[in-house]
Protein backbone atom coordinates (compact mmCIF):
# COMPACT_ATOMS: atom_id res chain seq x y z
CA UNK A 1 0.00 0.00 0.00
CA UNK A 2 2.93 2.32 0.72
CA UNK A 3 4.12 2.17 -2.90
CA UNK A 4 0.62 1.59 -4.24
CA UNK A 5 -0.79 5.01 -3.42
CA UNK A 6 1.88 7.17 -5.14
CA UNK A 7 1.75 4.79 -8.11
CA UNK A 8 -2.02 5.12 -8.36
CA UNK A 9 -1.79 8.91 -8.07
CA UNK A 10 0.92 9.01 -10.74
CA UNK A 11 -1.11 6.78 -13.06
CA UNK A 12 -4.20 8.99 -12.66
CA UNK A 13 -2.23 12.19 -13.22
CA UNK A 14 -0.35 10.84 -16.22
CA UNK A 15 -3.23 8.97 -17.86
CA UNK A 16 -4.43 11.72 -20.25
CA UNK A 17 -0.91 12.03 -21.68
CA UNK A 18 -0.35 8.32 -22.08
CA UNK A 19 -3.69 7.81 -23.80
CA UNK A 20 -4.20 11.27 -25.30
CA UNK A 21 -7.00 10.35 -27.66
CA UNK A 22 -10.23 12.30 -26.84
CA UNK A 23 -12.14 9.02 -26.60
CA UNK A 24 -9.89 7.70 -23.85
CA UNK A 25 -9.82 11.05 -22.09
CA UNK A 26 -13.59 11.02 -22.06
CA UNK A 27 -13.56 7.59 -20.42
CA UNK A 28 -11.05 8.93 -17.91
CA UNK A 29 -13.38 11.78 -16.96
CA UNK A 30 -16.28 9.34 -16.67
CA UNK A 31 -14.20 7.07 -14.40
CA UNK A 32 -13.38 10.00 -12.13
CA UNK A 33 -16.98 11.17 -11.94
CA UNK A 34 -18.19 7.65 -11.12
CA UNK A 35 -15.46 7.37 -8.48
CA UNK A 36 -16.47 10.68 -6.87
CA UNK A 37 -20.17 9.72 -6.80
CA UNK A 38 -19.50 6.22 -5.47
CA UNK A 39 -17.07 7.54 -2.84
CA UNK A 40 -19.73 10.01 -1.73
CA UNK A 41 -22.33 7.23 -1.51
CA UNK A 42 -19.79 5.13 0.38
CA UNK A 43 -19.83 7.44 3.41
CA UNK A 44 -23.36 6.45 4.35
CA UNK A 45 -23.95 3.32 2.26
CA UNK A 46 -20.57 1.75 2.91
CA UNK A 47 -19.12 2.93 6.21
CA UNK A 48 -22.45 3.32 8.02
CA UNK A 49 -24.07 0.41 6.17
CA UNK A 50 -27.23 2.42 5.48
CA UNK A 51 -27.89 1.45 1.88
CA UNK A 52 -29.39 4.34 -0.03
CA UNK A 53 -30.94 3.49 -3.38
CA UNK A 54 -31.94 7.08 -4.00
CA UNK A 55 -28.71 9.03 -3.98
CA UNK A 56 -29.67 10.30 -7.40
CA UNK A 57 -31.75 12.91 -5.58
CA UNK A 58 -28.62 14.59 -4.22
CA UNK A 59 -26.84 14.14 -7.54
CA UNK A 60 -29.84 15.68 -9.25
CA UNK A 61 -30.02 18.67 -6.93
CA UNK A 62 -26.30 19.19 -7.48
CA UNK A 63 -26.77 18.95 -11.24
CA UNK A 64 -29.84 21.20 -11.50
CA UNK A 65 -28.96 24.17 -9.33
CA UNK A 66 -25.86 25.34 -11.29
CA UNK A 67 -27.82 25.31 -14.56
CA UNK A 68 -30.80 26.95 -12.87
CA UNK A 69 -28.75 29.91 -11.63
CA UNK A 70 -27.36 30.23 -15.16
CA UNK A 71 -30.71 30.00 -16.88
CA UNK A 72 -32.68 32.27 -14.55
CA UNK A 73 -29.97 34.57 -13.21
CA UNK A 74 -27.31 34.40 -15.94
CA UNK A 75 -24.80 33.64 -13.21
CA UNK A 76 -21.83 31.39 -13.76
CA UNK A 77 -22.96 27.80 -12.99
CA UNK A 78 -20.24 27.44 -10.33
CA UNK A 79 -22.23 29.81 -8.12
CA UNK A 80 -24.86 27.10 -7.89
CA UNK A 81 -22.47 24.52 -6.45
CA UNK A 82 -22.51 25.67 -2.79
CA UNK A 83 -26.24 26.45 -3.00
CA UNK A 84 -26.87 22.91 -4.22
CA UNK A 85 -24.73 21.50 -1.40
CA UNK A 86 -26.80 23.32 1.21
CA UNK A 87 -30.06 22.17 -0.39
CA UNK A 88 -28.82 18.56 -0.55
CA UNK A 89 -27.81 18.60 3.10
CA UNK A 90 -31.23 19.95 4.06
CA UNK A 91 -32.90 17.28 1.94
CA UNK A 92 -30.75 14.63 3.64
CA UNK A 93 -31.78 15.89 7.06
CA UNK A 94 -35.45 15.87 6.08
CA UNK A 95 -35.20 12.24 4.93
CA UNK A 96 -32.85 10.92 7.61
CA UNK A 97 -34.62 12.45 10.58
CA UNK A 98 -37.81 10.40 10.30
CA UNK A 99 -36.41 7.23 8.68
CA UNK A 100 -33.47 6.68 11.03
CA UNK A 101 -35.94 6.30 13.89
CA UNK A 102 -36.65 2.89 12.41
CA UNK A 103 -34.23 0.01 12.07
CA UNK A 104 -33.94 -2.18 9.01
CA UNK A 105 -34.80 -1.47 5.40
CA UNK A 106 -37.08 1.52 5.89
CA UNK A 107 -34.30 3.91 5.00
CA UNK A 108 -33.52 2.13 1.71
CA UNK A 109 -37.17 2.04 0.73
CA UNK A 110 -37.73 5.67 1.64
CA UNK A 111 -34.76 6.77 -0.48
CA UNK A 112 -36.07 4.98 -3.59
CA UNK A 113 -39.55 6.43 -3.14
CA UNK A 114 -38.42 10.00 -2.54
CA UNK A 115 -35.91 10.00 -5.40
CA UNK A 116 -38.59 8.78 -7.79
CA UNK A 117 -41.10 11.34 -6.54
CA UNK A 118 -38.60 14.13 -7.08
CA UNK A 119 -37.75 12.86 -10.58
CA UNK A 120 -41.39 12.75 -11.61
CA UNK A 121 -42.17 16.12 -10.02
CA UNK A 122 -39.22 17.90 -11.64
CA UNK A 123 -40.42 16.59 -15.01
CA UNK A 124 -43.64 18.57 -14.63
CA UNK A 125 -42.31 21.98 -13.54
CA UNK A 126 -41.55 24.39 -16.36
CA UNK A 127 -39.30 26.54 -14.19
CA UNK A 128 -37.07 23.47 -13.77
CA UNK A 129 -37.07 22.73 -17.50
CA UNK A 130 -39.81 20.10 -17.14
CA UNK A 131 -39.18 16.91 -19.11
CA UNK A 132 -36.91 18.69 -21.63
CA UNK A 133 -34.28 19.70 -19.12
CA UNK A 134 -31.94 22.65 -18.71
CA UNK A 135 -28.92 23.88 -20.62
CA UNK A 136 -25.73 25.54 -19.51
CA UNK A 137 -23.75 28.24 -21.33
CA UNK A 138 -23.12 27.07 -24.90
CA UNK A 139 -19.98 29.17 -25.15
CA UNK A 140 -18.10 30.22 -22.06
CA UNK A 141 -18.23 33.95 -21.27
CA UNK A 142 -14.96 33.53 -19.39
CA UNK A 143 -12.99 30.84 -17.65
CA UNK A 144 -15.38 31.12 -14.66
CA UNK A 145 -18.15 29.51 -16.73
CA UNK A 146 -15.98 26.37 -16.83
CA UNK A 147 -16.95 25.67 -20.42
CA UNK A 148 -13.86 24.14 -21.95
CA UNK A 149 -13.52 22.70 -25.41
CA UNK A 150 -11.27 19.79 -24.50
CA UNK A 151 -11.56 17.12 -21.86
CA UNK A 152 -8.26 17.91 -20.18
CA UNK A 153 -9.32 20.75 -17.79
CA UNK A 154 -12.32 18.71 -16.65
CA UNK A 155 -10.14 15.69 -16.07
CA UNK A 156 -7.91 17.56 -13.64
CA UNK A 157 -10.76 19.40 -11.90
CA UNK A 158 -12.49 16.05 -11.33
CA UNK A 159 -9.25 14.47 -10.18
CA UNK A 160 -8.76 17.29 -7.68
CA UNK A 161 -12.30 16.87 -6.33
CA UNK A 162 -11.80 13.10 -6.07
CA UNK A 163 -8.61 13.68 -4.11
CA UNK A 164 -10.46 16.00 -1.70
CA UNK A 165 -13.32 13.51 -1.22
CA UNK A 166 -10.93 10.62 -0.63
CA UNK A 167 -8.82 12.64 1.78
CA UNK A 168 -11.92 13.68 3.73
CA UNK A 169 -13.04 10.05 3.84
CA UNK A 170 -9.58 8.99 5.01
CA UNK A 171 -9.68 11.50 7.86
CA UNK A 172 -13.22 10.47 8.71
CA UNK A 173 -12.23 6.81 8.81
CA UNK A 174 -9.53 7.52 11.39
CA UNK A 175 -11.74 9.67 13.60
CA UNK A 176 -14.28 8.83 16.26
CA UNK A 177 -17.03 9.52 13.74
CA UNK A 178 -15.66 6.88 11.35
CA UNK A 179 -15.23 4.35 14.12
CA UNK A 180 -18.82 4.93 15.22
CA UNK A 181 -20.09 4.49 11.65
CA UNK A 182 -18.39 1.13 11.29
CA UNK A 183 -19.71 -0.02 14.66
CA UNK A 184 -23.25 0.89 13.58
CA UNK A 185 -22.82 -1.07 10.39
CA UNK A 186 -21.51 -4.09 12.32
CA UNK A 187 -24.09 -4.16 15.11
CA UNK A 188 -26.38 -1.29 15.88
CA UNK A 189 -27.55 -2.58 19.24
CA UNK A 190 -24.04 -3.20 20.50
CA UNK A 191 -22.90 0.19 19.21
CA UNK A 192 -25.65 1.95 21.17
CA UNK A 193 -24.68 0.05 24.31
CA UNK A 194 -21.17 1.46 23.92
CA UNK A 195 -22.43 5.02 23.96
CA UNK A 196 -22.71 5.56 20.20
CA UNK A 197 -25.56 8.02 19.46
CA UNK A 198 -26.80 5.86 16.59
CA UNK A 199 -29.44 8.09 15.00
CA UNK A 200 -27.42 11.26 15.19
CA UNK A 201 -24.36 9.53 13.74
CA UNK A 202 -26.31 8.08 10.81
CA UNK A 203 -27.88 11.46 10.13
CA UNK A 204 -24.51 13.20 10.05
CA UNK A 205 -23.18 10.54 7.69
CA UNK A 206 -26.11 11.01 5.34
CA UNK A 207 -25.69 14.78 5.35
CA UNK A 208 -21.97 14.54 4.61
CA UNK A 209 -22.60 12.00 1.88
CA UNK A 210 -25.32 14.20 0.35
CA UNK A 211 -22.96 17.19 0.21
CA UNK A 212 -20.31 15.17 -1.68
CA UNK A 213 -22.87 13.60 -4.01
CA UNK A 214 -24.25 17.05 -4.79
CA UNK A 215 -20.79 18.19 -5.90
CA UNK A 216 -20.58 15.16 -8.20
CA UNK A 217 -23.88 16.16 -9.76
CA UNK A 218 -22.69 19.73 -10.24
CA UNK A 219 -19.50 18.57 -11.94
CA UNK A 220 -21.57 16.43 -14.28
CA UNK A 221 -23.97 19.16 -15.39
CA UNK A 222 -21.28 21.83 -15.66
CA UNK A 223 -19.20 19.59 -17.89
CA UNK A 224 -22.10 18.28 -19.97
CA UNK A 225 -23.89 21.64 -20.11
CA UNK A 226 -27.20 19.82 -19.99
CA UNK A 227 -29.42 18.07 -17.49
CA UNK A 228 -32.83 16.37 -17.58
CA UNK A 229 -34.80 14.51 -14.90
CA UNK A 230 -33.57 11.07 -15.98
CA UNK A 231 -29.85 11.83 -16.02
CA UNK A 232 -30.09 13.79 -12.76
CA UNK A 233 -32.58 11.97 -10.56
CA UNK A 234 -32.97 8.67 -12.45
CA UNK A 235 -32.90 5.36 -10.63
CA UNK A 236 -29.96 4.26 -12.75
CA UNK A 237 -27.89 7.16 -11.36
CA UNK A 238 -28.54 5.90 -7.83
CA UNK A 239 -27.94 2.27 -8.70
CA UNK A 240 -24.70 3.03 -10.48
CA UNK A 241 -23.23 4.62 -7.34
CA UNK A 242 -24.26 1.64 -5.27
CA UNK A 243 -22.92 -0.98 -7.70
CA UNK A 244 -19.63 0.86 -8.26
CA UNK A 245 -18.95 1.08 -4.52
CA UNK A 246 -20.10 -2.47 -3.82
CA UNK A 247 -18.01 -3.93 -6.64
CA UNK A 248 -14.78 -2.41 -5.36
CA UNK A 249 -15.65 -2.75 -1.71
CA UNK A 250 -18.24 -0.73 0.20
CA UNK A 251 -16.91 0.76 3.40
CA UNK A 252 -13.33 0.84 2.18
CA UNK A 253 -11.42 3.95 1.16
CA UNK A 254 -10.41 2.91 -2.36
CA UNK A 255 -13.23 0.45 -3.06
CA UNK A 256 -15.37 2.94 -5.01
CA UNK A 257 -12.42 4.10 -7.13
CA UNK A 258 -11.49 0.50 -7.94
CA UNK A 259 -15.11 -0.20 -8.82
CA UNK A 260 -15.17 2.81 -11.15
CA UNK A 261 -11.89 1.79 -12.80
CA UNK A 262 -13.45 -1.55 -13.73
CA UNK A 263 -17.06 -0.67 -14.37
CA UNK A 264 -16.81 2.46 -16.52
CA UNK A 265 -14.39 1.05 -19.13
CA UNK A 266 -16.51 -2.11 -19.20
CA UNK A 267 -19.59 -0.03 -20.00
CA UNK A 268 -17.69 1.91 -22.64
CA UNK A 269 -16.56 -1.37 -24.17
CA UNK A 270 -20.02 -2.91 -24.31
CA UNK A 271 -21.37 0.32 -25.81
CA UNK A 272 -18.74 0.35 -28.57
CA UNK A 273 -18.97 -3.36 -29.33
CA UNK A 274 -22.71 -3.50 -29.44
CA UNK A 275 -23.48 0.08 -30.43
CA UNK A 276 -26.81 1.72 -29.61
CA UNK A 277 -28.56 -1.63 -29.72
CA UNK A 278 -26.56 -2.70 -26.69
CA UNK A 279 -27.71 0.07 -24.39
CA UNK A 280 -29.87 -2.37 -22.43
CA UNK A 281 -26.69 -4.31 -21.68
CA UNK A 282 -25.89 -1.86 -18.88
CA UNK A 283 -28.82 -3.25 -16.91
CA UNK A 284 -27.77 -6.83 -17.58
CA UNK A 285 -24.25 -5.94 -16.50
CA UNK A 286 -25.49 -4.37 -13.24
CA UNK A 287 -27.80 -7.30 -12.55
CA UNK A 288 -25.00 -9.76 -13.18
CA UNK A 289 -22.65 -7.91 -10.83
CA UNK A 290 -25.28 -7.86 -8.08
CA UNK A 291 -25.80 -11.62 -8.42
CA UNK A 292 -22.07 -12.36 -8.39
CA UNK A 293 -21.39 -10.11 -5.39
CA UNK A 294 -24.30 -11.48 -3.38
CA UNK A 295 -23.34 -15.07 -4.15
CA UNK A 296 -19.56 -14.99 -3.78
CA UNK A 297 -18.20 -11.92 -2.07
CA UNK A 298 -20.59 -9.38 -0.50
CA UNK A 299 -17.52 -7.43 0.65
CA UNK A 300 -16.53 -6.71 -2.97
CA UNK A 301 -13.11 -6.98 -4.59
CA UNK A 302 -11.41 -5.50 -1.53
CA UNK A 303 -12.59 -8.38 0.68
CA UNK A 304 -11.78 -10.86 -2.08
CA UNK A 305 -8.24 -9.55 -2.18
CA UNK A 306 -8.01 -9.55 1.61
CA UNK A 307 -9.02 -13.24 1.80
CA UNK A 308 -6.82 -14.18 -1.11
CA UNK A 309 -3.73 -12.44 0.25
CA UNK A 310 -4.13 -13.76 3.81
CA UNK A 311 -4.54 -17.29 2.47
CA UNK A 312 -1.56 -16.87 0.17
CA UNK A 313 0.60 -15.53 2.97
CA UNK A 314 -0.50 -18.32 5.31
CA UNK A 315 0.41 -20.93 2.72
CA UNK A 316 3.81 -19.43 1.97
CA UNK A 317 4.74 -18.70 5.57
CA UNK A 318 4.42 -22.39 6.41
Amino acid at each position, binding site marked *: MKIGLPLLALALIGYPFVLNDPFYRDIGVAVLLAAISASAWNVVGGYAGQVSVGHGMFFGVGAYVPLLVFQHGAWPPVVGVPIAMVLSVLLAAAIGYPTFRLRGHYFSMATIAIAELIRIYVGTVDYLGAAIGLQGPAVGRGWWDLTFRGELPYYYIFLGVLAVVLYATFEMQ*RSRFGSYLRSIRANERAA*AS*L*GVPVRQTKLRALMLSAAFTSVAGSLYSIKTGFIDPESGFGLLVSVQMLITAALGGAGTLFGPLIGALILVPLQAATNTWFGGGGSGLTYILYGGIIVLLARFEPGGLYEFWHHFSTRWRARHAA
Partner: protein
Amino acid sequence: MLLEAKGVSKAFGSFFAVRNADLTVAEGEIIGLIGPNGAGKSTFFNCLAGDAAPTSGTVSFDGVDLTRASPDTHARAGIGRTFQVPATFEDMTVLENVVVGAYLRHPHRNDARSKALEILELTGLARFAHQRARGLGTPGRKRLEIARVLALQPRLMLLDEALAGLTPGEVQRAVELLRKIHDMGVTLVIVEHIMEVIMTLAQRVIVFNQGHVIAQGKPEDVVKDEGVIQAYLGRNHGKRRGAR
Protein backbone atom coordinates in the same frame (compact mmCIF):
# COMPACT_ATOMS: atom_id res chain seq x y z
CA MET B 1 -27.77 3.42 46.10
CA LEU B 2 -25.95 3.15 42.81
CA LEU B 3 -28.74 1.38 40.92
CA GLU B 4 -32.35 1.33 42.01
CA ALA B 5 -35.10 -0.48 40.10
CA LYS B 6 -38.58 -0.18 41.59
CA GLY B 7 -41.61 -2.18 40.55
CA VAL B 8 -40.27 -2.89 37.08
CA SER B 9 -42.68 -4.74 34.79
CA LYS B 10 -42.29 -5.55 31.13
CA ALA B 11 -45.19 -6.90 29.15
CA PHE B 12 -45.21 -8.20 25.60
CA GLY B 13 -48.90 -7.97 24.73
CA SER B 14 -50.69 -9.61 27.63
CA PHE B 15 -47.67 -11.66 28.67
CA PHE B 16 -45.61 -10.27 31.53
CA ALA B 17 -41.97 -11.31 31.12
CA VAL B 18 -41.08 -9.32 34.22
CA ARG B 19 -43.64 -8.47 36.89
CA ASN B 20 -43.03 -5.94 39.60
CA ALA B 21 -39.33 -6.63 40.11
CA ASP B 22 -37.21 -4.59 42.54
CA LEU B 23 -33.45 -4.41 42.68
CA THR B 24 -31.10 -2.18 44.58
CA VAL B 25 -27.37 -2.31 44.07
CA ALA B 26 -24.89 -0.48 46.27
CA GLU B 27 -21.56 0.79 44.98
CA GLY B 28 -18.94 -1.96 45.11
CA GLU B 29 -21.33 -4.91 45.27
CA ILE B 30 -21.33 -8.06 43.16
CA ILE B 31 -24.89 -9.23 42.58
CA GLY B 32 -25.84 -12.54 40.99
CA LEU B 33 -29.07 -12.77 39.03
CA ILE B 34 -30.20 -16.37 38.61
CA GLY B 35 -33.29 -18.27 37.61
CA PRO B 36 -34.40 -21.00 35.22
CA ASN B 37 -34.54 -20.36 31.47
CA GLY B 38 -37.35 -18.01 30.53
CA ALA B 39 -37.57 -16.59 34.04
CA GLY B 40 -37.27 -13.02 32.72
CA LYS B 41 -33.65 -12.35 33.68
CA SER B 42 -32.58 -11.09 30.28
CA THR B 43 -35.68 -8.96 29.84
CA PHE B 44 -35.15 -7.41 33.27
CA PHE B 45 -31.55 -6.91 32.31
CA ASN B 46 -32.54 -5.12 29.10
CA CYS B 47 -34.77 -2.81 31.14
CA LEU B 48 -31.79 -1.93 33.32
CA ALA B 49 -29.54 -1.29 30.30
CA GLY B 50 -32.03 0.88 28.43
CA ASP B 51 -32.47 -1.65 25.64
CA ALA B 52 -36.15 -2.06 26.46
CA ALA B 53 -38.35 0.48 28.19
CA PRO B 54 -40.24 -1.02 31.13
CA THR B 55 -44.04 -1.11 30.85
CA SER B 56 -44.19 0.27 34.37
CA GLY B 57 -41.82 0.98 37.22
CA THR B 58 -38.68 3.12 37.43
CA VAL B 59 -34.96 2.62 37.03
CA SER B 60 -32.56 5.17 38.43
CA PHE B 61 -28.79 5.26 38.50
CA ASP B 62 -26.92 7.35 41.03
CA GLY B 63 -30.12 9.26 41.73
CA VAL B 64 -30.83 10.07 38.06
CA ASP B 65 -33.94 8.59 36.46
CA LEU B 66 -33.02 6.48 33.42
CA THR B 67 -36.30 4.58 32.98
CA ARG B 68 -36.89 5.70 29.40
CA ALA B 69 -33.36 6.80 28.49
CA SER B 70 -31.65 5.37 25.40
CA PRO B 71 -28.87 2.75 25.63
CA ASP B 72 -26.22 5.33 24.77
CA THR B 73 -27.42 7.57 27.59
CA HIS B 74 -27.00 4.61 29.94
CA ALA B 75 -23.45 4.16 28.70
CA ARG B 76 -22.69 7.84 29.26
CA ALA B 77 -24.18 7.65 32.74
CA GLY B 78 -21.73 4.85 33.58
CA ILE B 79 -23.58 1.60 32.90
CA GLY B 80 -21.91 -0.94 30.61
CA ARG B 81 -23.47 -4.21 29.50
CA THR B 82 -22.46 -7.35 27.63
CA PHE B 83 -24.75 -9.45 25.46
CA GLN B 84 -25.83 -13.03 25.95
CA VAL B 85 -24.93 -13.82 22.35
CA PRO B 86 -21.61 -12.02 21.75
CA ALA B 87 -22.27 -8.87 19.73
CA THR B 88 -18.69 -8.10 18.77
CA PHE B 89 -18.02 -6.09 15.59
CA GLU B 90 -16.90 -9.06 13.51
CA ASP B 91 -15.10 -7.34 10.63
CA MET B 92 -13.28 -4.86 12.85
CA THR B 93 -10.06 -5.78 14.60
CA VAL B 94 -10.00 -6.57 18.30
CA LEU B 95 -8.33 -3.22 18.94
CA GLU B 96 -10.89 -1.33 16.84
CA ASN B 97 -13.69 -3.00 18.79
CA VAL B 98 -12.32 -1.70 22.06
CA VAL B 99 -11.53 1.73 20.60
CA VAL B 100 -15.27 2.24 19.89
CA GLY B 101 -15.91 1.95 23.63
CA ALA B 102 -12.88 4.03 24.57
CA TYR B 103 -14.08 6.96 22.43
CA LEU B 104 -16.86 7.60 24.98
CA ARG B 105 -14.46 9.09 27.52
CA HIS B 106 -11.58 9.90 25.11
CA PRO B 107 -12.83 11.73 22.02
CA HIS B 108 -9.34 12.02 20.51
CA ARG B 109 -8.03 9.17 18.47
CA ASN B 110 -4.65 8.72 20.12
CA ASP B 111 -6.07 8.87 23.65
CA ALA B 112 -8.78 6.35 22.77
CA ARG B 113 -6.23 4.08 21.17
CA SER B 114 -3.85 4.08 24.13
CA LYS B 115 -6.75 3.50 26.54
CA ALA B 116 -7.88 0.57 24.40
CA LEU B 117 -4.37 -0.92 24.30
CA GLU B 118 -4.16 -0.61 28.06
CA ILE B 119 -7.41 -2.53 28.40
CA LEU B 120 -6.33 -5.23 25.94
CA GLU B 121 -3.27 -5.70 28.10
CA LEU B 122 -5.41 -5.98 31.23
CA THR B 123 -7.82 -8.48 29.69
CA GLY B 124 -5.11 -10.59 28.07
CA LEU B 125 -6.20 -9.83 24.52
CA ALA B 126 -3.17 -7.76 23.54
CA ARG B 127 -1.67 -10.38 21.24
CA PHE B 128 -4.89 -10.51 19.20
CA ALA B 129 -5.10 -6.70 18.86
CA HIS B 130 -4.79 -6.62 15.07
CA GLN B 131 -6.82 -9.72 14.32
CA ARG B 132 -10.40 -9.39 13.23
CA ALA B 133 -12.91 -10.20 15.98
CA ARG B 134 -14.40 -12.86 13.71
CA GLY B 135 -11.26 -14.94 14.17
CA LEU B 136 -11.62 -15.22 17.96
CA GLY B 137 -13.44 -18.21 19.40
CA THR B 138 -16.37 -17.91 21.78
CA PRO B 139 -14.17 -17.42 24.87
CA GLY B 140 -12.20 -14.72 23.10
CA ARG B 141 -15.31 -12.91 21.93
CA LYS B 142 -16.87 -13.02 25.39
CA ARG B 143 -13.66 -11.59 26.74
CA LEU B 144 -13.63 -8.94 24.02
CA GLU B 145 -17.14 -7.89 25.04
CA ILE B 146 -15.94 -7.40 28.59
CA ALA B 147 -12.91 -5.46 27.35
CA ARG B 148 -15.10 -3.22 25.19
CA VAL B 149 -17.38 -2.41 28.11
CA LEU B 150 -14.39 -1.81 30.34
CA ALA B 151 -13.22 0.83 27.86
CA LEU B 152 -16.34 2.84 28.79
CA GLN B 153 -14.83 3.16 32.27
CA PRO B 154 -18.20 2.21 33.75
CA ARG B 155 -19.22 2.36 37.37
CA LEU B 156 -21.61 -0.54 36.91
CA MET B 157 -21.18 -3.53 34.63
CA LEU B 158 -24.12 -5.73 33.67
CA LEU B 159 -22.87 -9.12 32.48
CA ASP B 160 -25.42 -11.28 30.66
CA GLU B 161 -24.11 -14.85 30.78
CA ALA B 162 -20.63 -13.63 30.03
CA LEU B 163 -19.15 -17.00 30.99
CA ALA B 164 -21.64 -19.35 29.32
CA GLY B 165 -20.11 -21.79 26.89
CA LEU B 166 -16.62 -21.62 28.38
CA THR B 167 -14.58 -24.62 29.51
CA PRO B 168 -13.89 -24.93 33.26
CA GLY B 169 -10.37 -23.61 32.75
CA GLU B 170 -11.65 -20.61 30.79
CA VAL B 171 -14.31 -19.97 33.43
CA GLN B 172 -11.57 -19.88 36.03
CA ARG B 173 -9.64 -17.26 34.07
CA ALA B 174 -12.79 -15.23 33.43
CA VAL B 175 -13.64 -15.27 37.15
CA GLU B 176 -10.15 -13.96 37.88
CA LEU B 177 -10.69 -11.18 35.35
CA LEU B 178 -14.04 -10.23 36.92
CA ARG B 179 -12.36 -10.11 40.36
CA LYS B 180 -9.71 -7.81 38.93
CA ILE B 181 -12.40 -5.55 37.45
CA HIS B 182 -14.25 -5.49 40.76
CA ASP B 183 -11.04 -4.55 42.54
CA MET B 184 -10.79 -1.57 40.21
CA GLY B 185 -13.97 -0.29 41.82
CA VAL B 186 -16.55 -1.46 39.29
CA THR B 187 -19.87 -2.72 40.65
CA LEU B 188 -21.04 -5.94 38.97
CA VAL B 189 -24.44 -7.44 38.24
CA ILE B 190 -24.03 -10.92 36.79
CA VAL B 191 -26.64 -13.08 35.10
CA GLU B 192 -25.22 -16.56 35.14
CA HIS B 193 -26.22 -20.19 34.92
CA ILE B 194 -22.97 -21.58 36.23
CA MET B 195 -23.67 -21.82 39.97
CA GLU B 196 -19.99 -22.17 40.75
CA VAL B 197 -19.43 -18.66 39.41
CA ILE B 198 -22.34 -17.21 41.38
CA MET B 199 -21.26 -18.99 44.56
CA THR B 200 -17.67 -17.79 44.38
CA LEU B 201 -18.28 -14.24 43.12
CA ALA B 202 -21.64 -12.93 44.23
CA GLN B 203 -22.15 -11.30 47.59
CA ARG B 204 -25.90 -11.27 47.11
CA VAL B 205 -28.13 -13.33 44.83
CA ILE B 206 -31.52 -12.45 43.35
CA VAL B 207 -33.59 -15.38 42.09
CA PHE B 208 -36.10 -14.91 39.28
CA ASN B 209 -38.91 -17.26 38.38
CA GLN B 210 -41.75 -16.59 35.92
CA GLY B 211 -41.03 -12.89 35.96
CA HIS B 212 -41.05 -12.56 39.74
CA VAL B 213 -38.24 -12.16 42.23
CA ILE B 214 -38.80 -15.21 44.41
CA ALA B 215 -35.82 -14.98 46.72
CA GLN B 216 -32.79 -12.92 47.51
CA GLY B 217 -29.96 -13.05 49.98
CA LYS B 218 -26.53 -14.52 50.49
CA PRO B 219 -25.70 -17.24 47.94
CA GLU B 220 -25.33 -19.97 50.56
CA ASP B 221 -28.78 -19.17 51.99
CA VAL B 222 -30.51 -18.84 48.64
CA VAL B 223 -29.49 -22.29 47.41
CA LYS B 224 -31.17 -23.80 50.47
CA ASP B 225 -34.40 -21.88 49.92
CA GLU B 226 -37.35 -24.25 49.28
CA GLY B 227 -38.92 -21.92 46.71
CA VAL B 228 -35.69 -21.70 44.75
CA ILE B 229 -35.21 -25.46 44.75
CA GLN B 230 -38.76 -25.92 43.53
CA ALA B 231 -38.31 -23.34 40.78
CA TYR B 232 -35.22 -25.07 39.47
CA LEU B 233 -36.11 -28.71 40.04
CA GLY B 234 -39.91 -28.76 40.08
CA ARG B 235 -42.48 -29.20 42.79
CA ASN B 236 -42.11 -32.97 43.00
CA HIS B 237 -38.51 -32.73 43.96
CA GLY B 238 -39.45 -30.52 46.89
CA LYS B 239 -42.16 -32.99 47.96
CA ARG B 240 -39.90 -35.97 47.75
CA ARG B 241 -37.32 -34.23 49.82
CA GLY B 242 -40.01 -33.42 52.37
CA ALA B 243 -41.20 -37.03 52.42
CA ARG B 244 -37.76 -38.42 52.99
